[in-house]
């Protein structure tokens, strides 16, 4: 970058008069808020934000356009040539959805069957663990918590072979059980850590008051904490949902690629065909696989942002 955007974008004298007039009536905090707002909403910043947004969206848009172009067009020219050969077709979607021996609906269902328990199990366990770490005083609590926290460092790749041999000796390999189990194992450290931080944020007086009123751990957990934790749970649920839905590695290694257990990602990965001759279907396949996470994300988006911020910035 050679161009450094100027920090003070508004003409100085003009800015002075603008800031000076309301300053008489405003408190310091309000003034600071105004200044920050002014900086953030300067035309330059907006311009840069728009440019970044466009740059980020162009590839997605290109993929979207490509997914509607006929095979020969995809192979011979880029999506930006659409205005010159405006030929569009639904054939790619048709082929991606119904072209294979096993209908894509099977894989959709597998993805759902994998994802729902793989989201619910870690959340339930992590809530209980987080409660214990936050509100039950026991010996070695901090040490244990650091231990759980440290588990996040372990890359899942190093666990694949040992876990798989364990599953094989239990006779579970190739079933949904191992996928649920593995996703829960991999999600728990982060889930416990995040939910613990949320629980810690709840004022202790609230919990103490409940205790004085005679509530036990179970009652406190379900009737005092759980309602307050909804945004946190929702945000982690989205997080975990997206991760599991988009996961290829865990499903491929533990469940394998047979149609009775393979999720959508496995199918999309194979859409291009043995020697890649069908690669024009990939863009359509990508959009089909994207629909569910997109819906989930858009529907729960406000929780996502609120939940993540709640964990990160206190105050």
């Amino acid at each position, binding site marked *: 970058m050679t161009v450094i955007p100027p920090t003070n974008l508004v003409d100085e004298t003009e800015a002075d008069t603008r800031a000076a007039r309301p300053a008489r009536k405003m408190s310091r905090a309000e003034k600071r808020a105004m200044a920050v707002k002014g900086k953030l909403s300067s035309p330059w910043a907006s311009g840069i934000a728009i440019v970044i947004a466009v740059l980020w969206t162009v590839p997605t848009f290109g993929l979207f356009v490509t997914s509607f172009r006929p*095979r*020969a067009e995809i*192979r*011979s020219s880029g999506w930006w040539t659409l205005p010159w050969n405006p030929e569009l077709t639904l054939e790619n979607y048709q082929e991606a959805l119904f*072209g*294979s*021996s096993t209908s894509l609906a099977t894989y959709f269902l597998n993805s759902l069957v994998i994802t729902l328990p793989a989201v619910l199990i870690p959340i339930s366990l992590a809530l209980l663990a987080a409660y214990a770490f936050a509100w039950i005083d026991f010996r070695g609590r901090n040490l244990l918590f650091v231990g759980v926290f440290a588990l996040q460092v372990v890359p899942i790749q190093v666990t*694949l*072979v040992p876990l*798989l*041999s364990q*599953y*094989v*000796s239990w006779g579970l*390999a*190739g079933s949904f059980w191992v996928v649920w189990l593995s996703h829960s194992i991999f999600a728990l450290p982060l889930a416990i850590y995040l939910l613990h931080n949320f629980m810690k944020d709840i004022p202790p007086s609230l919990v103490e008051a409940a205790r004085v009123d005679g509530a036990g751990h179970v009652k406190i957990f379900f009737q005092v904490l759980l309602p307050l934790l909804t945004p946190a749970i929702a945000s982690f649920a989205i997080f975990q949902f997206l991760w599991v839905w988009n996961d290829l590695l865990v499903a*491929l*290694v533990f469940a*394998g*690629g*047979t149609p009775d257990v393979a999720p959508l990602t*496995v199918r999309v*990965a*194979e*859409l*291009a*065909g*043995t*020697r*890649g*001759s*069908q*690669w024009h279907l990939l863009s359509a396949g990508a959009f089909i696989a994207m629909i569910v996470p997109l819906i989930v994300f858009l529907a729960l988006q406000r929780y996502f942002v609120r939940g993540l911020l709640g964990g990160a910035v206190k105050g």
Partner: protein
Amino acid sequence: MNGLRKRRGYTAAAAAGAGLVLVLTACSGSDDDGGSGDGASSTTDCTAYEDYGDLSGKTISVYTSIVDPESQQQIDSYAPFEECTGAKIEYEGSREFEAQLPVRLQAGNPPDIAYIPQPGFLKSIVEQYPDVVVPAPQAVIDNANEYYTEGWVNYGTVDGTLYATPLGANVKSFVWYSPTAFEENGYEIPTTWDDLIALTDQIREDHPDVQPWCAGIESGDATGWPATDWLEDVVLRTAGADVYDQWVNHEIPFNDPQILEALGTVGSILKDSERVNGGWGDVTSIATTPWNEAAQPIPDGACFLHRAANFYQANWDESLKVAEDGDVYAFYLPGKTEDDKPLLGGGEFVTAFADRPEVQAFQAYLSSPEWANKKAEVTGQGWLSANNGLDPALLQSPIDKLSFDLLTDDSYTFRFDGSDQMPGAVGADAFWKQMTAWIAENQSDEETLDNIEAAWPQ
């Protein structure tokens, strides 16, 4: 197994056999006895399957690198076996096969049968997991010796033990061209290497704006493999099959002067901006052109020649006719002289990881002509086998027929793709990468071969 083969001759006529068919098809509940109905496959003759015994309720898992749409043809080709023996084949294809198979073997979760596409990979698996890989049973050995040439049997053999039998095959020594363009310009199919070069110059002279050859070696994380095929094909032609074998087995160093000469010959086409890269750009565009797109300029006349295997046919637009009198076709990449006919190819190998009777029976079935013919029957195009019991009339695409003719013609010297036989560190790594650098960075011939030699595991 002898009985099996003898019986094959007078199948349909034998009354006892016919009776058995009725019993077995009735068991599987798929078809009525008298129904001549829809297609030949519905009335399966089970006499050839008698020796496999009754395998009802048994399941055989198959793990391969062959995925949709080709996998459906595989699954269809198992139908007679399933129908006649009652066994069930659980098919699983994955493009991550080569990464996943070792993981499964290590974790103790092997499939019953895997189709391994590289003899080099087979060898390393036998070395690393000797207790998991099961040597071929006698029935399979008999089939292999009867229906495959010694060369093919040897590719499935490690240290004198036969582990795997060939499944499909492909032929790589082909040059794709447009018969119509050749006819318009009065070009002849070259029969010697010199003719090919003369034709190249002729095309360049007639069409000064066009580079005669087009090529592309981009293939994701396997980028560079089409260039290794180029070099292998040319080594077979300039140095001969014996030197090729020594080179592949590392009896001579990778950077032997004879290989250097071959690479120079490849470079005389692939690194000459007068000769490449028709329809795509300059020499370096070869490295960035996807291999399965590379020949697309041929029908447009922006390029005339493209060296690629028979399986390139799957990449042509459906509107193009792949035939000698069609829009695109391929001719044999000629040898030094008309009598010198080396042939480069590849294939998959059926490897078993279990010795249960049903697995052995299925392995025997896959090495039999019954399977090869059934496979040819259910495959539209793009498949052939080196099984000499395969009936060429069943192959449905002209290029498959041509490939099969070349494979079974004794005047052609067949050699398996060298990079597939070399250790993984070379054949699936250094060889690809250095050939890519040779083109993309204009790395010298010497440096390229020296670097690959240095990567050979000691």
